[in-house]
Every structure is written in structure tokens, then in C-alpha cells.
């Protein structure tokens, strides 16, 4: 009997649901080994007896009850409870079209790339399709709030497809939170992003989930001509998570920047992988990832820059800097350069160490207590990632969130959300 059939029988799921997906599952099993490079224990992530919402039953929690907007700015909000989307009727005066399709009937090609996408494809039932009209200049961000909320341990699967029309300018914020933190979740998300010529996109991936969440997140971005793309991977608190960010420069003269930080503590396992694929000429990429690992947290950074023979005049840079705060924290860093032509400027740097002892003493000599000085220095350490955030209201909020996080201050007034919109807004 094939393993897929065994899996279905074992879990007594509805066999119809898996019709025609056996090959995908096989691919997934084969591809899982690619994930071994992460410090995350995949077996551990998969261990809980998760429920899967095969029949698409809506969560009893109504999205209206969950207020999660970031203050000082207005945003259009799409809420997703587990894997059910709540989409407003109109967004940005119709400049953004949002639709939810059945995965089976989704009209666009859904490509599978990595093991994670295979996995996602087996179970995802709906596809959220976001299409931003060509030439649209969206002043405010589109925010997608992913809320995990269930009465049992649950596995959720989100499939998202984003198209940015030619010359459009937009900001999209993913904000992952946990509402019922007592339960364990497997949160699988797969996002395809297509940037047409001259498109500008800022994409924020903010994770602030409970430690019981195992997150498998993949974002695949394709850039056409003269695009400008900013990706921010901000792991405020990310439980057990793997983020895979793949960028393809499909045409010339585009530019992409990836900025990311990870703040880890407890037993968190946080892995980020980037693959920046220079397939065209005159493209520039810049990556900057910073990790602060405390307690027993483990971090992994796996970053690959690939420059093809045709991709002349490429500039590609990558930096990964990490601080281990405690005895039991661990960091595995693998920055990689694969270069196949000589007209390039490429570099990467990686370092793992501690806070600058001389700066620490300097601050203490001025009367700043050691723990405060350490936090200030740590804040400064991840500060350049926060400073790179282009959207000012979010940047200001992130400064506060990082500070609260580093002081281990609880500021989660509603449903464990650290955004703390209401209380903080009053300031």
C-alpha cells in the first residue's frame, strides 16, 4: 500500500479530498529532506495530532471581534481565521480586487517549488487572490491578519496569490498572531507574488505567534522589469518557524532588498532561508538579517545568492549578523554565493558574537544599569532593520514592539496580540 493511502487511512480523513493528490504527497515526502538544514525539528513540528478543517467549517470566532489594525494609519484589512478568509466587499475603491477561489478551480497556474508548497497543496482548499490594478498608487497598506483560533490542535493551510500590476505601488502587511494560545497549531502558508514591469511593493511579514505554533511559510516572488521590491521578515516571536523566501529576477534592472530580524527566546526554533536568483542583467539585491537569540532558542540562516551566466552587471550583497545572549542559544549560519559570470559585485558577511563589551562599559560608566544598557545595545543591533522599514507609522510602531519584546514586557491587551492597538494608541 502506498504511504499516501496509509496516511489517509490512518487519519480517517475524507478520501475524496485527497483525490488526485497522491503524487503531490509523494513529492512532499521526497522533498522534506531539503528542510533538514534547519535547526527546526520537523518531526516535532508534525507530531501533534492536528485536526484539519477539511469541510471548511467557519470558525466560531467572528473576525469582527478581533481588532488588529495598527494605529496611526488606516489600512484595508483582510482577516483570515485559521484558513478561512473574510474579505471586505471593496478595497481601495476597486483598485484592488480580492477573491477567494476553490483551490481546484483556481484559474491561474499554481506552481510547486519546494517541499513546503507540496505540503500546502495537499491540504489547502481555498486560494486568496489579490490583484492590484496597474498604475494604482496605494497610499495605505493592505493588511492580512492571520489569526489562529481553535478549540483543538489544528493544522491550517493558506494559499495566497498576489499580482501587482505594471507601475503599481503598494504595501502589503502580513500579521500572524495567535488568539487561543493554549492549543498547538501547524500554520502553513504559501504565497506567490508577481510583480509586473515598474511595480513597487513593500511586503511585511510580521510574525508574533505563541510558542505553540509551528509555522511553515514560503514566499515566492517573481520580478519583471524595473521593479522595486522590499521584503521585511520580522520575527518578533515565532515559535517554531521556517520561512523560505525565494526571489527570481526574471527581467532586467530590478532591485530588491530583504531585511529581517529574529528575536528568539524560550525554546523557539526560527529558520530563515533566502534564495535570490539573478537570472537577468543589471539587477541589484541586498539582504540583511539579524538574529538575537536568548534562552534556549536556536536560529538558522541559510542564504543563497545565485548569479547566472546571463546575469551580467549584477550587484548582490548579503549580511547575517547574530548575537547569542545566553549559554544555551545556538546559531547556524550558511551564507552562500554561487557566481557564474565575472561582471558582478557580490559579497556576503556573517558574524556571530556578543554585544560590544567596551560599549557596555561605556554606558555603565555613564550610570546606565547593565540590563538596560544591554537592551539598548540589542535594540540598536536590530535597529538598522527597523530603520529600513519605509512606511513610517509601522516603523515607529515596530520600534516600540521591539523594545517591549526585548524588555519582555507583556503588552498584549487583546488576544495576545502584541500590536496592542487600543492601549498604545491612547498615548
Amino acid at each position, binding site marked *: 500500500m502506498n504511504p499516501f493511502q496509509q496516511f489517509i487511512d490512518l487519519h480517517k480523513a475524507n478520501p475524496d479530498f485527497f483525490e488526485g493528490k497522491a503524487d503531490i504527497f509523494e513529492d512532499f515526502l521526497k522533498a522534506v529532506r531539503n528542510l533538514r538544514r534547519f535547526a527546526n525539528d520537523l518531526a516535532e513540528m508534525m507530531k501533534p495530532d492536528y485536526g484539519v478543517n477539511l469541510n471548511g467549517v467557519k470558525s466560531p470566532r467572528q473576525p469582527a471581534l478581533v481588532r488588529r489594525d495598527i494605529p496611526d494609519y488606516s489600512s484595508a484589512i483582510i482577516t483570515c481565521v485559521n484558513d478561512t478568509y473574510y474579505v471586505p466587499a471593496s478595497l481601495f475603491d476597486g483598485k484592488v480586487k480580492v477573491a477567494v477561489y476553490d483551490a481546484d478551480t483556481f484559474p491561474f497556474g499554481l506552481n510547486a517549488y519546494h517541499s513546503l508548497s507540496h505540503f500546502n497543496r495537499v491540504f489547502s482548499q481555498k486560494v486568496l487572490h489579490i490583484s492590484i490594478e496597474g498604475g494604482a498608487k496605494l497610499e495605505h497598506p493592505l493588511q492580512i491578519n492571520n489569526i489562529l483560533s481553535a478549540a483543538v490542535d489544528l493544522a491550517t493551510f493558506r494559499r495566497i496569490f498576489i499580482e501587482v500590476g505594471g507601475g503599481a505601488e503598494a504595501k502589503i502587511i502580513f500579521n500572524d498572531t495567535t488568539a487561543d494560545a493554549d492549543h498547538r497549531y501547524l500554520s502553513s502558508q504559501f504565497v506567490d507574488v508577481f510583480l509586473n514591469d515598474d511595480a513597487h511593493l513593500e511586503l511585511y511579514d510580521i510574525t508574533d505567534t505563541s510558542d505553540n505554533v509551528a509555522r511553515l511559510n514560503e514566499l515566492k516572488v517573481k520580478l519583471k522589469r524595473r521593479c522595486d521590491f522590499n521584503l521585511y521578515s520580522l520575527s518578533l516571536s515565532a515559535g517554531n518557524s521556517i520561512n523560505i523566501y525565494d526571489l527570481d529576477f526574471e527581467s532586467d534592472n530590478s532591485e530588491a532588498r530583504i531585511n529581517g530580524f529574529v528575536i528568539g527566546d524560550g525554546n523557539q526554533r526560527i529558520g530563515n532561508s533566502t534564495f535570490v536568483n539573478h537570472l537577468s542583467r543589471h539587477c541589484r539585491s541586498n539582504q540583511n538579517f539579524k538574529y538575537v537569540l536568548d534562552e534556549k532558542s536556536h536560529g538558522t540562516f541559510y542564504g543563497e545568492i545565485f548569479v547566472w*551566466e546571463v546575469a*551580467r552587471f549584477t550587484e548582490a550583497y548579503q549580511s547575517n549578523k*547574530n548575537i*547569542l*545572549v*545566553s*549559554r*544555551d*542559544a*545556538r*546559531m*547556524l*549560519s*550558511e*551564507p*552562500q*554565493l*554561487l*557566481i*557564474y*559570470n*565575472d*561582471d*558582478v*559585485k*557580490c*559579497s*556576503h*558577511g*556573517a*558574524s*556571530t*558574537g*556578543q554585544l560590544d563589551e567596551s560599549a557596555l562599559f561605556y554606558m555603565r560608566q555613564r550610570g546606565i544599569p547593565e540590563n538596560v544598557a544591554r537592551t539598548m545595545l540589542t535594540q540598536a543591533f536590530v535597529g538598522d532593520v527597523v530603520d529600513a522599514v519605509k512606511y513610517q507609522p509601522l516603523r515607529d510602531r515596530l520600534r516600540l514592539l521591539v523594545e517591549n519584546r526585548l524588555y519582555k514586557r507583556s503588552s498584549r491587551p487583546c488576544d495576545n496580540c502584541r500590536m496592542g492597538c487600543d492601549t498604545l494608541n491612547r498615548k
Partner: protein
Amino acid sequence: MNNERRNINDSDDIIKEATNSDYKYGFTTDIDTEVIPRGLNEEVVRLISAKKGEPEWLLDFRLKAYRHLLTLKQPKWAHIKIPDIDLQAISYYAAPVKKEGPKSLDEVDPQILATFNRLGIPLEEQKVLSGMAVDAVMDSVSVKTTHREKLAELGVIFCSISEAVKDYPDLVRRYLGSVVSYRDNFYAALNSAVFSDGSFVYIPKGVCCPMELSTYFRINAQGTGQFERTLIVADDDSYVSYLEGCTAPMRDENQLHAAIVEIVVEDRAEVKYSTVQNWWAGDAEGRGGVYNLVTKRGLCRGESSKLSWTQVETGSAITWKYPSCVLAGDNSVGEFYSVAVTRNYQQADTGTKMIHIGRNTRSTIVSKGISAGHSENSYRGLVMIVPKADNCRNYTQCDSLLLSSTCGAHTFPVMEIDNPTAIVEHEATTSKINEDQIFYCNQRGIPTEEAVGLIVNGYAKEVMNKLPMEFAVEAQRLLQITLEGSVG
């Protein structure tokens, strides 16, 4: 490239040859060679052991390795395309037929001496007196070791490993396989099963070896793999600098070279190991060339011990080697300085591992890759700090220079940091050769080829400076010759 056998007698011709950028060392030596039939099985392993008159324990060691080898597959993780090596198509033993062991230089086969002379090894006593002790390895058997008596006075043992097995069995038995286990990897298992000869060095307590020790390897007989095994033990408070030079004649088929170098460094001892590797790289179309698949590792066992690897790699069709340091002793120091040049269709996947186990251990890695033609040049490195290793430091700098638009330059570092007091830094850059610099040279009347040679030598200087003087000059010349015709 010309494959016909050459007979070059005077050094001017050699230089002419070299500057024509043909393979300088592409000649074979006509001497009687005793070769056992091709193929690998337990009988062959026993035969090798028997021919060398080895003790039971060593045969056991070989057989264990052979049996382990049967459970392994050729590793494929490196960034190289390597065909499956047919272990049955190789002859595992080729010894120059001995009349009687040479007692003096006069008794050494003059053809062999002539070969070494062509390689520029000062084997003749008068030249040797000026500096080196050479343990020359012609194919598999150590031919002549010079300076033995002088070294013996100090208690330094420098001989072939076969002799060491006979004369110092306890030492060899104690250290053989203690750093590179036969279980380590496919090629290490292969070597452990069939190793033919190599050098053995023992520096006693408190002795600073007064001269550079040197081995020249050369693959000669057709269809033979070379499986040397080098074992260096530096006892407490001792020092030795060891040089290894490699060349191979020009051959049409690929030749396998799977060596092991093991180094043990005890308390406060220091070992400096330098390699200039210039095995035949194959022709301009990528035919032929040596597969250089080597496991080199040193164990800094003692506190405050130091091991420094320096390598200049210009040859071989395929290079797969990672000279490593296991820094077990507190305050021990590991260094790796490397220049790797690839051109035509050469492939190199080389780098180092620095395993920090002791406290306050420090390591430095400087790697300079230069790729030209259609070659692939990769740096692969591991820096590991184990949880107990407090206050460790590593600095890695890893630069790639690209000389053509069709070559590949890659960097694969891994940093596994399990201790918060560690400071580990890695920096890597990849860029093409600076055209402004070339133009500047051109404007001053220096032709482009020569300019590239100058610039590359400058680029590699940091590493070249670590080589002992005699070697540095040769390496510099080698670099220049290797790069000729590479710019485009």
C-alpha cells in the same frame, strides 16, 4: 596541448615549456615498475600488506577499512561533477623494482634522480645541504630520504611510513587513524585499505626541527592510483615545518589520488604544513587530469598547540580537500591559508573545517579563489564552536577573483555556533579582476597577461607570504605560469 612523451634535458627547455603554458611536468620516467593487476578485493589488500611485510595489526586495519568501504558510496555533495570512479579499474600497487635498498645517492636509479632534478627537487646531497630534507615519493614507494642521520641526532624521525611501521611500530600504531578514522569518508576508507606509502614524521619533546621537511609526490606509472598516507606527530614543545609538493606526468586518462594526511600536535607544539599542488590538470578541453581527493586533518590535542595549513592549489582536474583543524587543547590555534587557481575545465571544491572544542581557541581562515576559463572554484568551510568551548574566536576571509565570464566561483561557509562567548566573523567577496589596474599596467607598458599575473600575485600575497621562502618563489612562478592565456 601535446601528449607525446617528451625528453627535456636542460632547464632552459623546461622554462620554455612552462612559458608556453604547457604542462611543465608532463614527462614519464622509464624505470622498471612492479605493478599488481588492476582491481580491488580483499586479496589485493592482503597482497599489498604482504608485499610490504606488514604486521598483523596493520593488515587488520586495512581489512576493516576495506570492509567499511564496501558499505559506502562515493560522496556527491561537493560542487563538482565527478564521474563514478571504477575502483576495479585501478592498480593499487606500483613500486619501482628494487635492486637492494639504496644506501647512498649513487645507488638510486639515475633516471629517478633525473626526474626529481627536472622537478627542481634538490635531491643531490650538496643541494640538500643547503636546506631541505626530502622524502621523495615516486609513485608509491619512498625512494630516498635525505638528511636522516642529521635529523636522527636530534631524535627526529623522518622516514617513509613503511619503514616507520617496521622501525617504530608502537608510534605508528598509536597514532595511525587517530585523527582521520578509516570510517571518516569514502576516500579515507579507500586510502586506509590500500595506502602504499607516504611520510612519517615524529618530532620529540622540546625539539625545534632545524630544517624544513619536504616530500615530493609524483604519480608516474600508468593507471595507478596513488594512495599516500602521511602521519606527523609533534610532541610537547616541538616545532616542525613540513612541505609537500605534488606533480604528476601528463596522461590521457584520469588518475586517482586519494591521500590522507594526519597531524597530531601535542602541548605547546607547532606544526606548519605547506602544500604546493600542481598535479596535471587535464588539457584545455577538460580531458585527463588528476582527481585529487584528499583528507587532511590535524588534531591540536595539546594546550596552546598550533597548526597552520598553507596551500597553493593550481593543478588537478578535480580537487576535493579540506585541510582541517580540530582544536581540542585549550588555547590552541588553527590557521588555514589557501590560494586555489582553476582554469580550463578544472573543478576545485576546497576549504577547511575549524572545530573549536577547547577554550580560548582561535582560528583564522584566508581563502583566495581565482577562476578562469570554464572552471568551477568553490570554497567550502565549517566553523564549529561546541557548547563548552568558551571565548573562541574565528575570522574568515574568503575572496574570489573571476577572470572569465564562463567560470564559476562559489562560497559555501557554515557557521555553527553553540557558545555565546564566541566571536565568529565571515567575510566574502566576489569580483572580477580590476580593469583599471590592468589599464594602469598597460599604460606603463606591461602587457595584459603579465599584468594579470602581477595583480593576481598581489591578490594572493597574503597567503603566499605564509609559505616558506623556497616554496614561495616556486609558487609565485607557478601562479604566473598557470594564469597565462587565462584572461578573456
